Every structure is written in structure tokens, then in C-alpha cells.
């Protein structure tokens, strides 16, 4: 963390960048929030720890419109989103000075809470200073510990790799934390009967309060005018009235990012209701991989996206029934 701050101070001092986009401490020990830093003094509030899950790529859309360069801290998986945004001409590469920051998996406070650890006052072991395998959590009810890997976000268990796809410089070590199959859960659902599938999604999606957080955080969801804000959309600007609207919203949300979603997992991370939204995105990714060839959005800035290209021999839609 200190290395990033020092480098940021240098870059601000020599005028290479006009501002720094990073994280500052939130109200609680586990919710750092994205922030701009424009002066060297303000950098004292800069934090980078295991809870800095937020993908800063999307903020670069706005930052690209500002005067001067912005130094942005991107984790390996955030660089996929940044690449994808370059491809879509939503960010300006010239306006960004990308510091590839090290990442050893990010933490999920909900997972810690699920372990029964409540009344959290402070957490140590999340600072990424050394290779800490355990988190020590001070709570109102005494000190508790848990393994770092057990508290990791779901997306970090299916890590895309420790390599930064785009950067100007790298600070810090990264680690590939993949220890699960990305499509395991999708396959489990696919094997269910239509009734079971429907019941599963009904129970998950009925939790949706239509806060639009999944849309707002998504780096792929960056249209200036969103269909969900249109008053012609049935459930715009209001809670879902029935189970149909819940499903419609989530299918359309996932469809709009199909072929562009890098599977950064931000949608599931920010969902206040804990809906596993990544299951929709991954279903599309899995289908695209199986039908149109392996494709990882954001891996480069030149390849053609699967939904804006085609081949004469593409599978017919009837394949859906045949695959079983």
C-alpha cells in the first residue's frame, strides 16, 4: 500500500497525472470506497486492502472526460474490464495511467458474517502487507479468526489469473486464487428439471428489490441511456410488481452484457440481497464458449465479440432442445 501511495505522490508531483483514482477507508473497517485524490496530502486517506473489491474501470469512463491524466489502480481482473471499455470506445487510454496493483483474492464480508462472526470492530490480516493466511477479527464478543481463503469472494475462487492485461506499471505481487470450476454451479442448474430450475430462480429473484446496483456497478453496463430507465420498460424506476418483472429484468440485464461481460463478479458482490447474479452471466459465457468458441471478453482490444459476429455454420436455435 505504501509503495502505491509513494508512486502516486511522485506522479502527482511531477504532473504526469492530475488525480489518483483509488480507495479510501469507509465508515466501517470492511467497506473501503472508490475515491479520487487530487493532492499529495489527501493521499493519507488512501487505502488498499483485501476489502478493496470495487472495480475502478467503470469510474474511468467519467475520468476520461476530465482534464489531464488519471492514475488508476487496477487489479488483474479489473484490467479485463478496462480492455473491454477501450474496445467499446468508452474510455480513453491516453487519459489513464494504469498502476497494476497486486491482488491475492478479495474478501467478502458476507461470508465472514455467515461464519457467525458478528459485531466486527476491526480486522487484521487483510492489509496485504505479508502473506497472511488467516484473518484476525476483533468483535464485540472477543477475538475470532478465519482462514483468508474461506472469506474470499466467490469470484476469486474462479480467478481468471494473476496477469494484468493492460498496465503502465505494476506494484505488488499477485496470486492466482482459482480453486473451483467456473461453470460448476451453472452445470448443476442445467441438470435440474424445468420445475426445479424455475423454483430455484423464483426463490433467488424474488429477493430482488430493484435497486439497480448490479446495473450501476457493472463496467459493461455503461450506456448513456439505459433501457431500464425508459418509461416504456415495464418495471422502470420501481420495484418489481410480480415474478415476471423480476425475471424480465434479470434476463435483459444479463443479455445486454452477453459477450461483453468479463465475469468480474461485481454484480454479485454489490447485490444487497445476495442474489447470485453471476449465474446468469456465466450461463451466457458458457453457451458462447460451447457454441461459438472460447471467448474471454477483455482479454484484448481487437477481437470480434461473439454477438456482433457470425459464421455461416452457426448452430441453429433448435440446438437448445437437442443438447438436453
Amino acid at each position, binding site marked *: 500500500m505504501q509503495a502505491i501511495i509513494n508512486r502516486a505522490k511522485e506522479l502527482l508531483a511531477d504532473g504526469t497525472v492530475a488525480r489518483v483514482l483509488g480507495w479510501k477507508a469507509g465508515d466501517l473497517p470492511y467497506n473501503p470506497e472508490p475515491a479520487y485524490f487530487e493532492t499529495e496530502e489527501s493521499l493519507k486517506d488512501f487505502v488498499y486492502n483485501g476489502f478493496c473489491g470495487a472495480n475502478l474501470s467503470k469510474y474511468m469512463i467519467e475520468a476520461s472526460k476530465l482534464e489531464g491524466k488519471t492514475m488508476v489502480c487496477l487489479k488483474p481482473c479489473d484490467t479485463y474490464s478496462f480492455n473491454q471499455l477501450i474496445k467499446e470506445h468508452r474510455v480513453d487510454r491516453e487519459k489513464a495511467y494504469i498502476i497494476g496493483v497486486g491482488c491475492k483474492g478479495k474478501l467478502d464480508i458476507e461470508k465472514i458474517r455467515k461464519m457467525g462472526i458478528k459485531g466486527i470492530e476491526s480486522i487484521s490480516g487483510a492489509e496485504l502487507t505479508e502473506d497472511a493466511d488467516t484473518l484476525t477479527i476483533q468483535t464485540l464478543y472477543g477475538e475470532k479468526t478465519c482462514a483468508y481463503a474461506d472469506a474470499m469472494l466467490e469470484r476469486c475462487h474462479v480467478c481468471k489469473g494473476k496477469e494484468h492485461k493492460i498496465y503502465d506499471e505494476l506494484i505488488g505481487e499477485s496470486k492466482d486464487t482459482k480453486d473451483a470450476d467456473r461453470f460448476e454451479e451453472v452445470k448443476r442448474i442445467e441438470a435440474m428439471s424445468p420445475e426445479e430450475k424455475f423454483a430455484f430462480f423464483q426463490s433467488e429473484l424474488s429477493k430482488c428489490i430493484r435497486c439497480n446496483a448490479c446495473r450501476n456497478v457493472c463496467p459493461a453496463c455503461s450506456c448513456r441511456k439505459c*433501457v431500464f430507465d425508459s418509461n416504456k420498460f415495464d418495471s422502470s424506476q420501481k420495484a418489481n410488481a410480480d415474478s*415476471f418483472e423480476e425475471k424480465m429484468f434479470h*434476463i435483459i440485464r444479463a443479455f445486454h452484457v*452477453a459477450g461483453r461481460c468479463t465475469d468480474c463478479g461485481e454484480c454479485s458482490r454489490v447485490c444487497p440481497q445476495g442474489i447470485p447474479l453471476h449465474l446468469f452471466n456465466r*450461463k451466457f459465457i458458457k453457451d458462447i464458449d460451447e457454441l461459438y468458441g472460447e471467448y474471454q471478453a477483455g482479454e484484448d482490444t481487437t477481437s470480434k465479440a461473439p454477438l*456482433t459476429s457470425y459464421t455461416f455454420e452457426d448452430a441453429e*436455435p433448435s440446438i*437448445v432442445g437437442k443438447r438436453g
Partner: protein
Amino acid sequence: MSIEEKEEFRPKIVAFCCNWCSYAGADLAGSSRLSYPADVKIIRVPCSCRVNPMFILRAFEKGADGVILCGCHPGDCHYSTGNFYARRRMTLLFSMLDYIGVENGRTRVEWVSAAEGVKFSQTMNEFVEKVRSLGKNVRLEDLRCRQ
């Protein structure tokens, strides 16, 4: 003696037909006096590619029991490539509908050219029969639309 009232399930089918091939195919079926069920409501679209996934969901929302999309044969699109994009989109959408538990017999894509009136009527007959066998669609319907 009273007349027994027999309530048979008549599915509501929405068919999106492209202006250049399938709609003309439907016309040909009509002028050739080939019959297909009146349960099929045709909506003409400029190209199969004009069909937004939302149209299909919307049709289900408003109470359709099945939705079929007809377009030019791949390679014959009036706009050269529209149906290729439509094909990928619909494949993904149908797969997603299947994934959330809507039987995939309720959705279909069929390529019908302007000369295939017979194919059009056959397809519609088959599709209506299939949806009838699946019964009423209660999975994806806005309950407020049901009076």
C-alpha cells in the same frame, strides 16, 4: 338434453415474421389455400434481426403460450447478414429461457422463404400442436394480464 360445453385449450402463439421472406411465405400459404391454426398471430418485422429479446419476453408477459420467429434462410437475408445475428441472439435467449425453467418447446426459430408456403403452414401446425401439448404457459406470465 343439454349441449355439453367443451372447453378446449387454444394456445396463443405469436409469430414474428420478416417482411421479405416469411411474411410473403405466410401470404403464399394463404393464397395457396393452405390452412394453419388461427391461434397464430403474425407480427411483421422488417428483418428477423429486428426482434429484440425483449419482444419475446414481452409476448410471454402478455400471455402468449409460444413464440416463433421466422426469417429468411441464412445467406438469403434481404439485408445480407441480419438473420445471422438473429440466429446467435435467439440461440442464447432460448438457452437462457430453458435455464430458468421455461420449456424450450415454447420457443422456436424457423427459416421460411417467400416460396415456402407449404413449409409455413406445416411449421405453424406443428408448433401449435407442440404448444398445445405443453399446455398453458404459467411460468412467464404477468398475472395482472389474466382477467
